[in-house]
């Protein structure tokens, strides 16, 4: 009986692996992808990068303007994240099981958050481009909507996880809704909320770079501009600046997390 069970389990694993192998072969056939050529062209690309894609002396003169663009991108991500976090707090309070005001508002806030969350920032940017054109407002709103949806969701979970018991205790003392929110829910949840906010600032700086190519703003625009004008040395400088910025931001936010948690 148990031997049968093990054999069956093994043959199931085999079937899944064979299925996956067949799928990837079929996909390669349909798209006419040849792994050998793929590998060789990958090497060629590396060779090209080594030959052209590094900052030279002349590209360094572009650094001040690149830094200006970078500042724009970083500040926009921070602005979008903080504004989104502030609004998400209200929605999450209405949407969390432990802090809901009533079921209708809870459903409304949950479905709004789910809707916004499931559309990625890049898709938002494309939609908003029609209305606001190529401006930093488009980028800001795109980041705002996706961040708002995501943060609403995680704040709801934070409230539900961390505060049910103290809410009961404060209710029993005769405290009112507002008092419970400010005296129990927010103090207990704040560190986790800030941690999620920092995570979104990091993510948004990455997304903002990509969005900048679409909306013609920030550091993404610098990259697109240099790349299209075949100034590869300057474009590589932009990439390096982006990588360094993301590492620095991650280092700072990890440090903040250690202090508050």
């Amino acid at each position, binding site marked *: 009986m148990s031997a049968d069970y093990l054999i069956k389990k093994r043959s199931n694993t085999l079937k899944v692996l064979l299925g996956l192998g067949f799928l990837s072969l079929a996909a390669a056939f349909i798209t006419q992808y040849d792994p050998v050529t793929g590998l060789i062209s990958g090497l060629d690309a590396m060779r090209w990068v080594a030959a052209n894609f590094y900052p030279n002396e002349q590209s360094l003169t572009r650094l001040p303007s690149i830094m200006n663009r970078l500042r724009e991108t970083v500040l926009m991500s921070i602005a979008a994240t903080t504004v989104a976090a502030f609004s998400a707090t209200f929605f999450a309070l209405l949407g969390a099981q432990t802090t809901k005001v009533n079921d209708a508002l809870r459903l409304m806030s949950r479905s709004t958050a789910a809707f916004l969350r499931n559309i990625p920032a890049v898709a938002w940017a494309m939609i908003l481009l029609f209305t606001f054109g190529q401006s930093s407002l488009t980028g800001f709103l795109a980041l705002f909507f996706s961040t708002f949806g995501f943060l609403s969701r995680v704040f709801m979970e934070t409230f539900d996880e961390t505060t049910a*018991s*103290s809410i*009961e*205790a*404060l*209710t*029993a*003392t*005769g*405290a*009112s809704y*507002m*008092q419970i*929110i*400010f*005296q*129990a829910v927010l*103090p*207990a949840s*704040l*560190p986790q909320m800030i941690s999620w906010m920092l995570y979104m600032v990091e993510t948004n700086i990455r997304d903002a770079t990509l969005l900048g190519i679409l909306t013609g703003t920030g550091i993404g625009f610098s990259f697109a501009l240099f790349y299209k004008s075949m100034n590869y040395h300057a474009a590589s400088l932009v990439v390096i600046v982006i990588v360094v910025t993301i590492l620095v931001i991650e280092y700072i936010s990890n440090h903040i997390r250690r202090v508050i948690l």
Partner: protein
Amino acid sequence: MSLLTVKGVSKHYNERIVALSDVSFAIEPGEFVVIIGSSGAGKSTLLRCINRIVEVTSGVVTFDGLDVGSLDKRELRKMRTKVGMIFQHYNLVNRLCVLENVLHGRLGYKSTWAGALGIYSEEEKAQALRVLRLVGLEEQVYQRCDQLSGGQKQRVGIARALLQDPKLLLCDEPISSLDPNASKVIMDYLKKINTELGITCLVNLHQVHIALAYAERIIGVKRGRVVYDGLTEHLTAETIHDIYGSEAGDLLLGSGGNHVG
């Protein structure tokens, strides 16, 4: 006049789950009453029906001359300030310090915004320090609650309830998460609060031997019904067997049988 009367109270969570059925008893001012019963017998629900954290399905709870079920929001908050509650898991806001948690006991007396922003008068702070001295926590006033031991956390819970200046203290399994030493300390504090401050105590316990050692009067609950209500010395081994089921009764009486008259 009785401080608390519970008359024909039933609580159905849905058609199949009946937490309480037709529970009636009265508590006189200054009494120390212990409710015993196995887990899931309805003890916790019963306590929560008294301060309306759980709404009753039918029946009437009268506290200090007020029909609890008919109170509006504001009146209910006012009534709750007179009923302190302590919990098995202490239900503190762990990230706040001891003093802040104790001051939560005043929220029901304060205006919404003064309470939400945590603005307390000197008088209230002095009172909080007095209560903390009473439960032996004067050394830990500014310590964060997540750094305290279980017994200390429960003493913070007691201090918070006392700061409400309550007439009745509802204690829901106050020692179930504590070791025997801390349990004794907590039960001694409750007894002291009862005899010295004259605060009526209604305590849920599932440890029979502790109930026998501390209670003047015992109410036995089994499957949502009151099966015993009388003086501790009149509680017989048979009744204990009835409340807990016979095998568990033997085990329980092994450590507490000598108290049974």
